[in-house]
């Protein structure tokens, strides 16, 4: 869910074999090296070496994605933040420290920062928005939208 993080490093480009391994893992990230090897008619050692190489280059990562509900996050809020009298970057870094804040993006638009916040219970909303986020220096205005349904949430590209 990003963008440019200012990293100049370019990833070594992936070849057909790397992409075949990625395709198998996209379907099931826990396919064993042995099973991948069998499907691609190569050795498990080759699979292991390729995965290591891609992870070292931060080109890809196999992730366990846990559902919001499995973690007890029942309230998801999209919060737009306007910043005044402080650098947007500094405010963003402070907001990123809250574990409840799942994503922080600096925006070009009506708001300076967009947050995705996950809370366990509706009773936490007031305290989190007004006491925690509201107390960060530079936060001049917050506009919250409470999620009533998440119809799609598929990011297979992210800043690694």
């Amino acid at each position, binding site marked *: 869910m990003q*963008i440019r993080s200012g990293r100049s490093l370019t990833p070594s480009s992936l070849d057909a074999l790397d992409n075949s391994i990625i395709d198998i893992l996209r379907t099931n*990230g826990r396919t064993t090296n042995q099973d991948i090897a069998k499907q691609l008619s190569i050795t498990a050692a080759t699979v292991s070496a390729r995965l290591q190489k891609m992870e070292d280059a931060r080109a890809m990562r196999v992730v366990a994605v846990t559902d919001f509900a499995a973690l007890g996050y029942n309230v998801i809020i999209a919060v737009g933040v306007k910043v005044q009298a402080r650098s947007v970057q500094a405010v963003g870094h402070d907001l990123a420290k809250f574990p409840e804040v799942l994503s922080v993006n600096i925006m070009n638009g009506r708001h300076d920062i967009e947050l995705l916040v*996950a809370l366990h219970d509706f009773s936490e909303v007031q305290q989190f928005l007004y006491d925690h986020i509201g107390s960060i220096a530079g936060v001049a205005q917050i506009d919250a939208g409470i*999620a009533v349904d*998440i119809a799609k949430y598929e*990011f297979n590209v992210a*800043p690694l």
Partner: protein
Amino acid sequence: MTDTSWQRLDALDHKIVSKLALDARISNRAIAAELGVTEGTIRTRIKRLQNEGLIQFTVVTDFRMAGSPNLCMLGIDADPSRVTEVAARLKMMPEINCVVLLLGRFNLLAMGLFTNIEQLNELVVEQIRSMPGIQRVETSISVHNLKYEAGVAKITRIAAID
């Protein structure tokens, strides 16, 4: 959002989930050894969590591999009677990664990753503004990402696990 699946996870499930969050490819045997249960128990538990859409294992590739796209957020207002239908149509669009129905700022928040402005403009003007019932589309572009948790999401598609 009022799902009670959280209660369907017991203490052992939570321990397994935390191990997997650190290393998605850790072997069942290694988890079993660390938690002092059998490998079969771990296998059964993980399979159940996958089948119930509580956990999913996938690959995330770096932004650079996709041409360093920009995350664009679309705040959408629509006629109340059309919101659900608009959400369903947005969900079908391959360019859109995320669709959330909201109360408050907008009726809908959609997100997509774009490598050029023309592509974004085409989507908004030709495909979204033209949908029946659309009142307003407000576009905002992320210029820098400071945080993103790849390990937490809404699992909307349950993969068939054998």
